[in-house]
């Protein structure tokens, strides 16, 4: 059987951790299924800086490296190596210096000697011995006087230098730096110099990657899982670009308030879409509203390839003991307690017994489309007016989206709304498994939110926003009425959550039927769909998208 080669272009930045990227999870699920096809072999092209991380991730996920080919740029820019080394040094916990270890040792020895001397001094019956001891003590004391003096001088000098250092850094920080230095490099609203340099490096590495890709003549067509990498559009072979979403266009004000760098990323994204040929999206809404509606891409150039079902059981379901269900729950509690401790907001959270708390979970980053404030309003109402006992666990970082943190503080909800960001995959699975209910109030997504199958896979029911990408998947009217709410009305969000908490079992039973249906679509189906589109590109290369 002849084997056809297709490529996947990955141009993640050097600091991206694929394990934590949603796209990374999708890629792994895709590859796991892709290696099961005998007639197709994928070639992964990425910058050298992603190579080790990618291979480690594949190994930990049980994807044999023999199942695909990997090509990379072959080297890491010197500037990046320096930057990474600097970052690693900053992250590394400071080691105790040898000087301080020696000082501690000397001090403990000195304390022992002093105690011995005092004991002898007070115990001796002999006047001669007593005088001899006093004289010895005095001599030792005298010998230490110069050393003591020197230490005092050093200490005074050190404090003076620290004071000067603080004054200088204050002047630089408050007056000089913004006024003079930064203005040389940054214009208001533009990227910071570091980000600009970083992007230059990414571009240069992108060029190298492109050269490499274009030299691979045996690869018949290329797939790119996102639209953030403009280099993809310059591949000479047929190309298929996935556009997960274009959220800033729907939430312009919300995203405008986030990192200024987003403006540049958005520019790149639009440029990539406009220069693309063939596309896939995860939902029909994304195809029609965004690509066809906003970017005027011909409908025939866009295929919809929905996700397959997620199954988190593999990360937490333990086996081999008499009561596997209890062992699994205990393991999940341990994982969650670990997450509480790591989050370490305060002693309250660190000491929480995860087995005691009932909670609702919304697993998502904090972004303008995620509708977190509405959920918080609904939750506060449920907690304080409807007296549900549950806590609310969120998985975003309030430091990166201050409105959430402010709301929680203003309403004094710190002990009930816990933000556990940076969860590992098993911790996330544990969180879903232990939750009473999963909620997803997101106003807009590129495809049906992962929450649906993630929660159901570990036996937790879900209530979600009534948005079109979700309704594409949940088609039964009764089930929609049961589990969907109006995300623009916090009272409706609250009412649906309260109903679900009181009708957990019937809701779960109905959703298990849905899950059984959704499980029929596997990642192999997703791969087959994508391969089908790639094959069609090879057979009849389209030029439908324009190509700038």
């Amino acid at each position, binding site marked *: 059987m002849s084997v056809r080669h297709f490529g996947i272009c990955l141009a993640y930045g050097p600091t991206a951790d694929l394990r934590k990227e949603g796209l990374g999870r999708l890629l792994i699920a895709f590859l796991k299924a892709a290696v099961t096809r005998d007639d197709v072999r994928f070639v992964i092209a990425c910058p050298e800086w992603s190579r080790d991380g990618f291979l480690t991730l594949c190994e930990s996920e049980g994807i044999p490296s023999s199942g695909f080919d990997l090509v990379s740029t072959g080297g890491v820019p010197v500037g990046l190596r320096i930057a990474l080394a600097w970052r690693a040094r900053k992250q590394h916990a400071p080691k105790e210096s040898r000087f301080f270890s020696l000082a501690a040792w000397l001090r403990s020895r000195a304390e022992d000697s002093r105690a011995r001397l005092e004991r002898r001094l007070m115990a001796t019956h002999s006047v001669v011995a007593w005088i001899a001891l006093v004289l010895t003590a005095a001599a030792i004391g005298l010998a230490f006087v110069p050393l003591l003096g020197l230490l005092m001088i050093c200490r005074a000098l050190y404090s003076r230098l620290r004071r000067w250092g603080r004054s200088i850094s204050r002047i630089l920080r408050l007056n000089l730096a913004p006024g003079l230095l930064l203005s040389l490099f940054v214009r208001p609203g533009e990227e910071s110099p570091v980000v600009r340099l970083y992007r230059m490096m990414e571009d240069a590495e992108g060029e190298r990657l492109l050269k490499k890709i274009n030299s691979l003549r045996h690869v018949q067509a290329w797939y790119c899982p996102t639209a953030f990498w403009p280099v993809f559009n310059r591949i000479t072979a047929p190309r298929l670009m996935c556009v997960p979403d274009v959220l800033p266009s729907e939430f312009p004000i919300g995203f405008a308030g986030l990192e200024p760098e987003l403006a540049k990323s958005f520019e790149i994204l639009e440029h990539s879409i406009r220069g693309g040929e063939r596309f896939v999206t995860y939902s029909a809404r994304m195809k029609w509203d965004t690509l066809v509606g906003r970017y005027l891409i011909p409908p025939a150039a866009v295929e919809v390839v929905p996700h397959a079902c997620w199954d988190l059981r593999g990360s937490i379901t333990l086996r*081999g003991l008499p009561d596997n269900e209890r062992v699994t729950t*205990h393991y999940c509690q341990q994982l969650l307690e670990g997450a509480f401790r790591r989050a370490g907001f*305060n002693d309250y959270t660190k*000491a929480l017994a995860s087995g005691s708390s009932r909670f609702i979970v919304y697993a998502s980053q904090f972004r303008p489309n995620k509708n977190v404030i509405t959920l918080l309003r609904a939750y506060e109402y449920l907690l*304080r007016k409807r007296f549900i*006992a549950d806590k609310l666990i969120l998985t975003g970082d309030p430091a990166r989206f201050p409105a959430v943190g402010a709301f929680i503080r203003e309403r004094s909800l710190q002990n*009930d709304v816990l933000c556990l960001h940076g969860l590992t995959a098993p911790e996330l699975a544990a969180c879903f498994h232990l939750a009473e209910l999963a909620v997803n109030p997101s106003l807009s997504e590129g495809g049906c939110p992962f929450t649906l199958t993630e929660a159901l896979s570990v036996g937790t029911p879900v209530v979600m926003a009534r948005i079109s990408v979700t309704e594409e998947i949940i088609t039964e009217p009764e089930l929609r009425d049961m589990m969907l709410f109006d995300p623009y009305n916090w009272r409706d969000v609250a009412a649906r959550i309260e109903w679900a908490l009181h009708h957990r079992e019937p809701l779960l039973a109905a959703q298990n039927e849905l899950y059984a249906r959704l499980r029929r679509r596997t990642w192999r189906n997703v791969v087959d769909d994508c391969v089908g589109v790639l094959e069609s590109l090879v057979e009849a290369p389209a030029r439908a998208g324009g190509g700038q």
Partner: protein
Amino acid sequence: MTEPLPRVMWLLSHSTAREFEIAMLKKLGFAEVFLPKSFPMEAGFRSASVDYSEDARLSIPPDDLAILNAADWYSDPGRDVWQIANKHFQVLFFIVQSSSFLSSMARHFQGVAILRAYGLSQDMSYDRILLHYGQGTRMLDGLGRRLWMGTAYEHIASIEPPWLRRREVYLPAGLDDCRVRGDWTGHDPTLLFVCPEVATNPYYMQIYRKFKTWFADFPYVVGGAQPLMPNDPHVLGFVPADAYRRNMREFRVMFYHSTEPNHVHYHPFEAVRAGMPLIFMGGGILDRFGGDGLPGRCSSYEEARHKVRRILDNDRKLINEIRFSQPRLLNGLHPETLQPLWRQGMEQVVDSLRSLPPSTLSRKPRIAVILPVPYRGGTLRSAKLLAQALLAGSRQFDEKADVVFAYPHVPEEGADKWDEGLPPEIPRRSLTWLALEAAAARRAMKFAGHSAWGPTAERYLAMDDGMQQFCDCDLWIIVSDRLSAPLLPIRPYILLIFDYLQRYDAAFPENADYAFLAAARAAARVLVTTRFTEGDALAYGGIARERLFRVPMLIPERPTVECAHREAGDSHFLWTTNLAAHKNHLNAVRALREYYEVLDGRLECRVTGADTKDLLKSELPHIQPLRALVSESKVLAKKLRPLGELPEMLYQRQLATASFLWHPAQVDNGTLSVVEAAQLGVPSLSSRYPAMEEMNERFGLHLAWMEAGDPSQMARQLKWMEEHGPSVRSRLPGTNALAAHSVEEVASEYWKVVRECL
């Protein structure tokens, strides 16, 4: 050991250890051994199993055995179970799995307890574990000389501090069968590395990662139980017995990584028994088993790689050298070799049992019921009812106990004396709070015999009664969690918590309640009286489920005043409240205004409760707006009558003649006033919230409901009550129905929980 030997409880579940140790105990003459029939469902218990085979040899009544078999010996089996254990057993072996087991055993077991110490990782000691689970040595102090540390390896007590070293008894670990089998072939040129839990346990994850960095280029497989299978084709996971035997017979070599000086796994010995060459790292405990100098020993990973490579390449000379020399490792595990040591150790234990001081005639336990803050009203009344319930409960169980009642010293008395209504057999004490700095706290604990206790807070609270600072009491029960700093843990304490109102207050300052929550988490037990507060104690308080107990709400005896004759018609209704924010004053007064001005309400509203005489004068931010509301409405000013806090008799009279009782609070743990009202034939109109719904359901009160957030609806309900008084009254529960919930009737529920802490 000529006298009959005591029965033994071997409260462990490790299969291999059990095989050896039970056989050894039998050889020494301990003919009757009890084994636990369950173990924690945790991944760490991967080598555990349940064995019923010893039950047939136990000459104890089958009913007692059934109770012991049903008990959880890794947590708190309960006082009654311990009493049965004490009847039949004098020696027990245990491991430390939970704080609840340790405290329960220390409190209730009367024989000798042997902590089975198989050694720990290098950075851990039994002292640290016991101090962690035992809150210092506070729990273990109760065991005194009856606690032994049964070390499995001779040297492991040397790293422990003197208090534990003094308790050492050497009971070496061994293997029931140390014969070397002769069927190893080594046909499969694969390296066997045993490493359990590689996907779930960070300790083993680390070990496996290190192994891979050195041996990934060899053909290898990983054995050991894997509760969660990693995505790694090298990991075998569970293998059936046949496959396991085949693996031990056919794999070429085993590598053992551990350099832990105090702990060893069983699998390297299994390899030696199978005749499989064992390559192991030197510096670990195997050196003590004669491993030092063996050809399979390696000083470095480079050396280990080199030797493994030679064996995989079928270097027969090295293979034979290793195989023929390594049985030396089993010498120290032979039952015959170890029997004299076990005999010596167990003789020590049995001698100590015989030389225990006779149990002194125990005095009656004394329990202090303490109000930490000078609460009045419902909280004070509940505290007094609790004291009465404990007294009654102890009598019902025929386990007499003294109960004392303590109240903060107050210069001024309120409407009633704080101890009004308390039975004379409950002595009273006044208390003042002492704050002890950390150093003084340490001294106090040391003086009390808790030498290993160390402070973790800057300041501790202690209670001064002018006598022995409540140290004459065996248990303190604090009514509410309002402790501004940790309580000095010189005695165990229980908290009775009514509510977590701060959870429902959006203006509550961040972390202002942390000390309260911490006090509850450190309590031996926490009592709550409603499902609602139980939910909050778990979800908000973060209290471990096994220490939280829901007990029935206590209701006062039937008031002594007579029910009112109503021929003359009703003149008023009674609003019982205080000035706390959750009492919902603003909505209540808005509702009253509407009731009088819009709905032509006829009944006067009489307000009673602590501080209510200041209802229209207080400067509290949530009370201030009432003044304007009342001054704007003549009829409201006329009909709203604050009575202040009334003496009990006067209050009852006001209540008995009221048309109904009004309870417009937003949320709390429920109010007893509605029960008292029902006892006097007076119905109640209450806000609808979970605790009141629970009370309504429990006592069959047929409460009328209103929404605390909707003043208009509240007003309409007031009018409805005015108009439907007789029909509502007719649905009230009868005297007998309420008597079924009296203190005497539910006292045993309280005693069952509290007696476990004595």
